[in-house]
């Protein structure tokens, strides 16, 4: 049997493990999760959430004291990722757009300021289709930009909400067009409760539930160890990883676990930190850091946000689904790549009045009626493609976190170019709202953004001098050490990263099974 250690238990860890177990009967996998247990789709926990307003996932957010963050507001650990079994898909929104072909070739536009991916869209297109099936994505299979190569979504698009109709004519008149937002929702499970952050039906994909299934399906060949923070990767030789050093948080004891292959799938921040913490004579600055790129090039999405009031909302339009249904890729196109692209959607969490809160605030039902009729808002939210900026990076800070991992150091400031792109795209959104006839338009843009879209700190490259991993996600100049996280993206594009990450994980599973 071949012993494979996977660091992390999130969606990347589960996807690569599932593919590897299915493809290679000789593989034995151990998943090492630093966090504790998390139970999805528990009715009582959901009930407590809707009655109290506090999501059960919040307990698994980063404690503020676990990181030293030097930022102008542009990076927050807390609220982005989940530190528990199954990782961040425990609370994700399930938005699943693909990157576009030009995103894989940003170096063609940005020259020395960016790197092309070591793979291209055409090579990856089938893995996108597989990832959409893996994540139970509802989407429009007739769309052709980006190309789908006849790949079918497993489920039809969800349909547009009535409130989308406020925006659609404006998008048509402006020539921007629109399309269905691809979302991970199982249509037979979803009951439109709108509490998607903690779904009582497990209707969106969660790695925690898939992991439970995996442990049953492959019992005897896969093991999960919770509360097992990995402190370092130990090398048997300059190129050969021998295993990992794991902390027992209760006793403080450290244990060595041997492996034939190691896959680090612990998210952008923790994966990067683990390589940085794994130093040796051959790798004095961290594993894979021969080119000086480990921890560098940190990017994530800022948001451009504009909202406007629906005048005379006699239809009492409000959000009726718990996820966005309308998106626009007009600005997510090659002509905007120099500026920084934008993928925008009608955001789904602001278009209604919070009746229970207003009543408990002492507002009369008549006054709430007036708010519904005259002050219901529509929000357009755009994710902006950010570019690499020297000095934006992840590192190790002194001390340990609550889970026993090294504390995090983040340096992240908004580049002038990103600010410029964010402001220009905000004006594009304002233009749409004005064209739609909305009033009292507000700028709610913010640079502050979360770490769950962070990428590029272990970027892939053809040449070892330019990055940390190769096109097969193997750490450069090692034989058996792989990285499977958003950290390997050379750039972030303008869309959510998870679908692409799952595609990469499935591709890595195939690669390892065939190696």
């Amino acid at each position, binding site marked *: 049997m071949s012993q494979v250690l996977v660091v992390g238990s999130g969606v990347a860890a589960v996807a690569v493990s599932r593919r590897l177990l299915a493809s290679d009967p000789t593989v034995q996998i151990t998943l090492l999760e630093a966090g504790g247990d998390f139970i999805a789709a528990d009715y*009582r926990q959901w*009930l*407590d959430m*809707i*009655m*109290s*307003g506090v999501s059960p996932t919040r307990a698994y957010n980063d404690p503020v004291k676990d990181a030293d963050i030097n930022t102008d507001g542009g990076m927050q650990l807390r609220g982005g990722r989940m530190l528990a079994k199954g990782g961040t898909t425990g609370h994700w929104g399930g938005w699943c757009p693909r990157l576009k072909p030009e995103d894989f070739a940003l170096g063609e536009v940005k020259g020395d300021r960016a790197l092309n991916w070591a793979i291209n869209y055409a090579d990856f297109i089938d893995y996108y289709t597989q990832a959409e099936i893996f994540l139970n994505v509802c989407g429009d299979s007739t769309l052709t930009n980006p190309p789908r190569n006849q790949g079918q979504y497993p489920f*039809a698009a*969800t*349909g*547009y*909400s*009535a*409130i*989308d*109709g406020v925006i*659609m004519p404006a998008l048509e008149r402006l020539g921007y067009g629109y399309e269905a937002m691809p979302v991970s*929702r199982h*249509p*037979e*499970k*979803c*009951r*439109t*409760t*709108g*509490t998607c952050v903690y779904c*009582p039906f497990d209707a969106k994909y969660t790695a925690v539930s898939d992991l439970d299934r995996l442990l049953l399906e492959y019992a005897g060949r896969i093991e999960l160890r919770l509360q097992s923070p990995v402190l370092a990767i130990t090398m048997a030789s300059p190129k050969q990883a021998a295993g990992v050093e794991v902390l027992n948080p209760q006793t403080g004891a450290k244990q060595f676990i041997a492996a034939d292959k190691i896959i680090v799938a612990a998210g952008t921040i923790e994966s990067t930190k683990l390589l940085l913490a794994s130093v040796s004579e051959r790798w004095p600055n961290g594993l894979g850091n021969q080119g000086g790129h480990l921890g560098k090039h940190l990017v994530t999405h800022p948001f451009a946000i504009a909202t406007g009031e629906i005048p005379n909302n006699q239809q*009492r*339009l*409000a*959000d*009726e*689904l*718990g996820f966005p249904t309308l998106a626009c890729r007009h600005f997510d196109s090659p002509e905007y790549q120099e500026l920084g692209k934008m993928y925008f959607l009608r955001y789904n969490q602001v278009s*209604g*009045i919070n*009746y*229970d809160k207003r*009543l*408990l605030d*002492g*507002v*009369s*039902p008549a*006054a*709430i*009626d007036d708010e*519904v009729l005259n002050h219901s808002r529509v929000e357009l939210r755009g994710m902006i493609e950010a570019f690499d900026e020297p000095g934006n990076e992840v590192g190790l800070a002194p001390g340990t976190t609550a889970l026993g991992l090294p504390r995090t150091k983040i340096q992240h400031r908004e580049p002038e170019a990103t600010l410029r792109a964010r402001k220009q795209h905000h004006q594009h959104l304002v233009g749409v709202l004005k064209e739609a006839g909305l009033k009292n338009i507000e700028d709610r843009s913010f640079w502050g953004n979360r770490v769950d879209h962070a990428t590029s700190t272990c970027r892939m490259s053809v040449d070892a001098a330019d990055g940390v991993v190769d096109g097969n996600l193997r750490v450069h100049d090692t034989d058996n050490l792989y990285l499977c996280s958003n950290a390997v993206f050379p750039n972030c594009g303008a869309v959510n990263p998870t679908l692409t990450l799952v595609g990469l994980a499935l591709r890595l599973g195939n690669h390892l099974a065939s190696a």
Partner: protein
Amino acid sequence: MPTAKITRRLLISAGVAAGVAALIPLSGLLVSLPEEDLAPIAGDKNAPANQPYRAEQTGSLDGSAVSQLQDFCRWAIAAWALPGLDDYAAQLPALLELKTQQAPSYLAEYQSAAALLMAARAREKSDDQAYTYALFAGRDLKNSNATRLGRAERWVFNELVRHMIKTGGFRRFGSQNYDGFINVAFTEAGAFRRS
């Protein structure tokens, strides 16, 4: 004895009948805040702020306490004219059982809130005033978790109001769906309004 002011606006806001609100002086009514309502729950100054009191103590709520909470819900449904909740009070015991039979248990919070309601109904001139007191009188307290009244508002009355709205009361405002409302599969016709 400490006091809290209940105004006509507050009563009208709460949906109380205009005839009842008219009995309140224009300057508002100062209601007494009984010492026992301002004391810590069960006299325990160390009651946790981030979870129900004695969350590990599971069990069933006694019939009298259930009845008090049912009456509160009936009043709120009527006061705010919340539609589609005719069976809510009848189904409330099952909800309370679910919240008290497993940790984190709300048993101690429900018992305390029910006792507070019973005392308020005996003390105030009308049930309208008693329930308004229960919902709103404690909101200006500085450390609401340190008092029975504040805890009853947070852990019991406010939570029940949220549940009633999400269970169907939101239709009062013309919506078809609402966060927390369990509807049907979105693939079914009529599940949501389509553009």
